[in-house]
């Protein structure tokens, strides 16, 4: 099987929003990679209070990966940060609703909407 890195993670601060671009697959292994990529429980870099995940280059997410996304957004729910996302395929939007992930993760139709709305919220 493909031994390449399953998930590439790039992040930047944009308008006070911590924007995390994900490329690849989110599975048990790469979900852990995402959780270990930053000390999320300490808050976001640059004292940002808003996390936006860009799923536009994500092709496959399995149940273990969704479990790790639940953990990621729940770590911010007590005031550390709010979470949003865009670029999500309708199928995964359906799964996110099904597992209750959308209680903590707002789904936006575009990057512009995510950044603009998130900025206004703050």
């Amino acid at each position, binding site marked *: *099987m*493909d031994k390449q890195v*399953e998930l590439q993670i790039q992040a930047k601060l944009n308008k006070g929003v911590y924007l995390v671009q994900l490329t690849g*697959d989110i*599975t*048990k*292994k790469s979900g852990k990679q995402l959780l270990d990529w930053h000390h999320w429980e300490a808050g976001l870099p640059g004292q940002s209070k808003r996390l936006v995940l860009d799923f536009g280059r994500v092709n*496959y997410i*399995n*149940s*273990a990966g*969704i*479990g*790790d996304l*639940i*953990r990621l957004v*729940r770590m911010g729910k007590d005031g550390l940060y709010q979470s949003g996302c865009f670029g999500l*395929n*309708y*199928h995964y939007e359906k*799964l996110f609703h*099904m*597992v*209750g992930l959308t209680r903590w993760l707002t789904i936006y139709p575009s990057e512009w909407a995510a950044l603009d709305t998130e900025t206004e919220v703050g």
Partner: protein
Amino acid sequence: MNIQSQFGEEKHVIKQLDLYLSQGALQEDEYYDIRTAVTEACLNAMEHGNQLQNLLPVKIHFEWLESRLIIIVKDCGKGFGRIPTNREDDRGWGLAFIQHLMDYCTYYIDLTDRCFCMHMEKELKNKHQPEGL
């Protein structure tokens, strides 16, 4: 189709479904539903059925019956008596996805092959099975 019991092997199944999609046998929403259900069944088979013993195979069988796609995923484990309900918030959604996304799902022990089988069916919108499938 056979795959090894190693995380990542389930993606081989996606290639087969990609082929069905490209041939027009599946519509896009059906493709994604089936893709998630089958890969989750494979992950359960690899992890819980075969205990991630690489040499133990997971067998995936596709069968077209008129407008219905039947998929059977077999592993070398003993299965489970009933679908586990002790799901935590952030784990164990695989079986729930399978039940939600497929039209029919059951499981049984195949005494002939001595394996555990997850049997799933999806009624497809395209009533005409493409040639060669």
